[in-house]
């Protein structure tokens, strides 16, 4: 099993979700996060007072999938989240040691 973490632009979330559903991803967890990479920040100006905002808002997806689906998921996220500009985000893939469905106690691939 693989655990996939993707950081994407917030406005791309719906597109990514739809694309992932289409390839068979059954669930995901998302959170609103802030961070920076090559995109750096923005400048805000209030009555002439300039503040540079270093951290930009992003959405973080967390998805657990079986080994056979992992490569497809990464490819799908990459394609659906891309705007071909700086700040589109990153995708990380980790090995997942176990997964358990709380309702039934099932574990392994069947719990995903």
């Amino acid at each position, binding site marked *: 099993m693989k655990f996939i973490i993707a950081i994407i632009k917030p406005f791309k979330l719906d597109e990514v979700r739809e694309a992932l559903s289409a390839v068979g991803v059954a669930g995901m967890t998302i959170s609103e996060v802030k961070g920076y990479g090559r995109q750096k920040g923005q400048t805000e100006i209030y009555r002439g*007072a300039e503040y540079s905002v270093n951290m930009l808002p992003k959405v973080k997806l967390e998805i657990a999938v079986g080994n056979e689906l992992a490569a497809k998921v990464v490819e799908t996220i990459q394609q659906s989240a891309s705007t071909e500009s700086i700040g589109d985000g990153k995708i990380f893939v980790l090995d997942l040691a176990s997964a358990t469905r709380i309702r039934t106690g099932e574990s392994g691939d069947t719990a995903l």
Partner: protein
Amino acid sequence: MMRKLTSGLLAFGTIALTATAAFAQDAAPVPNPGNNAWMMTSTVLVMMMILPGLALFYGGLTRSKNMLSTMTQVTAAACLGMLIWVMWGYSLAFGATSYEGFLGKFISGGSYFLSSVTVDSTAATFSDEVISEYVFVAFQMTFAAITGALVFGATVERMKFTAAMIFIVIWSTIVYYPIAHMVWGGGGLILDWGALDFAGGTVVHINAGVSALVAAYMLGKRKGYPTEPMPPHSLTLTLVGAGLLWVGWFGFNVGSELEADGTAGLAMINTFVATASGALFWMLAERAVGHKPSALGLASGIIAGLVAVTPAAGNSGPFGAIVLGAVASILCFIVVSKVKPAMGFDDSLDAFGIHGIGGMVGAIGTGIVYSPLLGGPGGDDFVMSTQVWIQIKSVVVSILWAGIGTAIALTIVKMLVGLRVSTEDEEAGLDISEHGERAYN
């Protein structure tokens, strides 16, 4: 009654004074219900400028941890201003007893606790009409109430609530009431010079703005200013507040005619167009220096335009008012975004930068746009240079009086209770440390 009639009048006060003498002999003048009704409406419109208008405008500009403190200071200052107005404020500004000689130029007396006011007593307007004196007392009360609250734009996020309240009592007594008398009261120094101040450019805006500047210096900067970011926590509420201020300002400016007549109509159109001009020219100024045209710029320009047109409301043609709004807005923008950072004082919400500077532009500019050549209501005998000199003199007197008076008031407050909250309380925010509440849970 005759003395009463001498109280109370704005730019054309001298005309009103001569017109009132005859009434005392004849039957007592009866207020026109239409004018009374309009003045009651105006009065509550000015009330709406304070709460919720100014409270939201200022509140949105502060950090979320100081939202309630800001709104509470504005509102409580207005409440206190109302109570001391009926105790001794009306007396010092428009009281029934005129003092002879030097003292009479600065204050009046009598009428303490409204002792001379009855349901039948009246105040003269600028024509041969009168309005009920209780209505006049209430209308002027709202002006006194908002002016003190405006000063707190410079001191938010660090001034103690108790200090703010004591300040209002002392400052109103030694600064606001004398200036109101000088500009509007019978026998007042500036009124007798022939200065034009339709709705309070000197009394309200220069006065509040200069007092705010002195207060900003005496309190010192907020902890962390200007290195730490202190962006406004809700420009949405600030824009809501700016809208309420604009609507309420029709009571302020148009009501200052004291009648629902043609000059009131002129004040109304000017309050629309000068403000619209100020709003857009602030955004243009932002573009000119390479910034984006901002919502806060729009809101600031609205206030700058309103402030500038206040003394000119019934004293300018609509196109003079448009120019006045534009010039004031550009100058306020420069002071707020360039001069203030260079000077390093922490006028937190720009009470001086907008009310002080906009008020000065408006007061001096009124001496120009009054000219019939520019579409103003001045007569054929109007001499611009003479009028502008009178306007400048009235501005200088207001600046000195407000500046010195505020320094005295704050010094007394500092000796009594201190001005600032502790660093720890400032860090936690005044909502929790001064009032024991949070605005947002």
